[in-house]
């Protein structure tokens, strides 16, 4: 039953990812990306990472996608281009790279032995409590440093997008 739910979520994620990459309209790309993020949140929830599933929905589907929609509507994109319009050479090289790199990763994943299984001993390994303890304990420096990085990113974004320079 869990496997069935996982496979459904995985299929939704893959279909939405393909639409996000292939569709001609940028708005459709972004809306498909929302679907993919939600499907990945579903995968996180299935494998027991409740906290990360919530973060995925809040940060990705909430914040990042709104940024994308803002940018697209601000830019007023009239001309849209589909896939493979950059010439046959680009299409050929792209397909070779995808089959090579993606195939290598899937092949490597398939060769790992799943016998050890997905047993979860401490059933609460993905809830907010252990993650919060780790964030304010062993990973405190990284946690604080991320806030500096975010502040720097906001300043950079405001500087780059200001009107008169």
């Amino acid at each position, binding site marked *: 039953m869990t496997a069935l739910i996982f496979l459904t979520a995985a299929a939704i994620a893959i279909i939405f990812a393909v639409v996000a990459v292939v569709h001609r309209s940028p708005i459709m*790309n972004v809306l498909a990306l929302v679907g993919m993020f939600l499907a990945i949140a579903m995968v996180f929830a299935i494998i027991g990472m409740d906290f990360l599933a919530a973060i995925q929905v809040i940060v990705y589907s909430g914040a990042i996608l709104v940024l994308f929609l803002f940018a697209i509507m601000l830019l007023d994109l009239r001309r849209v281009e589909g896939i493979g319009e950059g010439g046959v050479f680009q299409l050929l090289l792209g397909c070779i790279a995808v089959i090579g790199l993606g195939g290598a990763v899937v092949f490597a994943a398939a060769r790992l032995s799943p016998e050890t299984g997905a047993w979860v001993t401490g059933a609460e390994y993905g809830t907010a409590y252990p993650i919060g303890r780790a964030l304010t304990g062993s990973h405190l420096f990284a946690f604080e440093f991320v806030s500096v990085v975010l502040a720097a990113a906001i300043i950079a974004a405001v500087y780059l997008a200001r009107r008169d320079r």
Partner: protein
Amino acid sequence: MMNADLLISVPYTWVLALSGVLLAIGILGVLLRRNAITIFLSLEIMLNSGTLAFAAFAMHFAAIPGMEATALNGQMFIFFIIAIAAAEAAVGLALFIALHRLKGSIDVDRANILRW
């Protein structure tokens, strides 16, 4: 909270395989599209495939006694990847707005001032 016995039937290799497929789709988008927003969106797909790979191994190590700290480290990495992705999205989209103002288009083939 999910029950431990619900988690038996999903091997971590499946999650890893999903991560690989999403990585391939992301690479496809970066290599074949010329709309900067769509390229950026493909980067987000690849970042998500990275978080899924971390999740797969975190799930794997959570099952092994004595490796719980490693599993928690994997989830920490996912947390920080999501935070960095947010910062990256803000800077990248600001870059595209600046590019659009400069060239009137965000077709990456037209951003070729540095061409030799």
